[in-house]
């Protein structure tokens, strides 16, 4: 059966991926999903991988982590805000999801 859980989603620049993922894990996330991203932010359009970007690592990536407790989701978001997004651009939001195999989250 499905169990209620919370997904924290971070969209940021690719070169920050390792930093964001290790913060997610150190705050209790047991894994994460990486998806190449693109779209429009406050300043300009960020192209997807369909279009080559000359500089390495400045494309966007969407990193998703699912946790069971809201408190853990809050810690993950607050830590990333403080340690990464105080200096770099990016967005964080959460979604309520339902999961099978809750022991994996």
């Amino acid at each position, binding site marked *: 059966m499905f169990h209620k859980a919370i997904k924290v989603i971070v969209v940021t620049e690719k070169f920050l991926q390792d930093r964001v993922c290790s913060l997610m894990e150190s705050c209790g996330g047991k894994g994460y999903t990486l998806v190449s991203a693109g779209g429009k932010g406050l300043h300009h359009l960020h192209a997807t*991988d369909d279009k*080559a970007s000359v500089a390495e690592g*400045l494309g966007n990536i969407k990193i998703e982590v699912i946790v069971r407790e809201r408190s853990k989701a809050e810690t993950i978001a607050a830590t990333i805000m403080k340690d990464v997004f105080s200096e770099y651009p990016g967005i964080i939001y959460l979604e309520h999801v339902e999961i099978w195999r809750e022991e994996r989250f």
Partner: protein
Amino acid sequence: MNVLLEFLLRFVAQLQSPTLAFLIGGALLAATGSKLTIPGSIYQFIVFVLLMRIGIEGGIEIREANLAEMLVPAVFSVLIGLVIVVLGRIFFSLLPKVKMEDGIATAGLFGAVSASTLAAAIVLLEEESMMFEAWVPALYPFMDIPALILAIVLANLYLKRKHAGGTHPVRIFQIVKDSLRGAALSALVLGLLLGLFAQTESVLSSFYDPLFRGFLSILMLILGMEAYARAKELRSVAPWFALYAVVAPVVHGALGFALGYLAHILVGFSPGGVVLLSVIAASNSDISGPPTLRGGIPSANPSAYIGASTSLGTPVAIAVCIPLFHSLAQVVFNL
């Protein structure tokens, strides 16, 4: 006067060379709003093949080379990388309305090296049969890494003074590691090692070499498209960055030429080597430098330094500096 005339004639001829024509073609495509795009994965593959070809070719020839000859040009490369950053730091500190860390990051990127400009210069020298030592492409990291490190150190010193201690410690080893792990340098270094230690002649002549020029033309197309796209970002920062991006490659190339000429007198550095050293000095990092600076100087505005480098610096290095220093070498060395 003769030098000027020869340069102008050469420049017009260069406009018809595939390298420059594709660069301009890419910019035209982007300007017309064309839907043609080249995927990121193909771009990465092209950079890999180009740098692997340069590396393997260099590695094979290094087997017979006397590497002690490399010492003086390598020391000069480090020196050029450092001097460029210091000059840039001074230039931007003299100007009003420039955020200092943007200026230092820009100087760092212009001190670092562009793999695509290097590849374009190698094609020209091969077409013109101007010989250069096989190890010259290996000078790349000697200029690239010190320039990036110095820019990050200077920016952090500046920010520390400004905010009294609110900055991060500079992790030099991490910067060296990041630079060597970048796509362009990893392929170049691996290629050098493969050429040096393995029997790579057949794969070079049957695969990497035939692809070299064709792939370079696609890379130039991508650079042209990106140059046009980034020009909008450059317009959002102070016009000084555009001025710097046009003038700095020529000044840096001249510095490279002067020190290359000195190496020619001291240790017999070849005329082709002098041209390549000038072009490496004139070039500005477009692939691996930006993420290193983004990591090391978070408060610097990437629109300033990437805009300056990609939209103007690289086209100037390719379109102006390569023919300029090539024709200068022909005059100076009586070729």
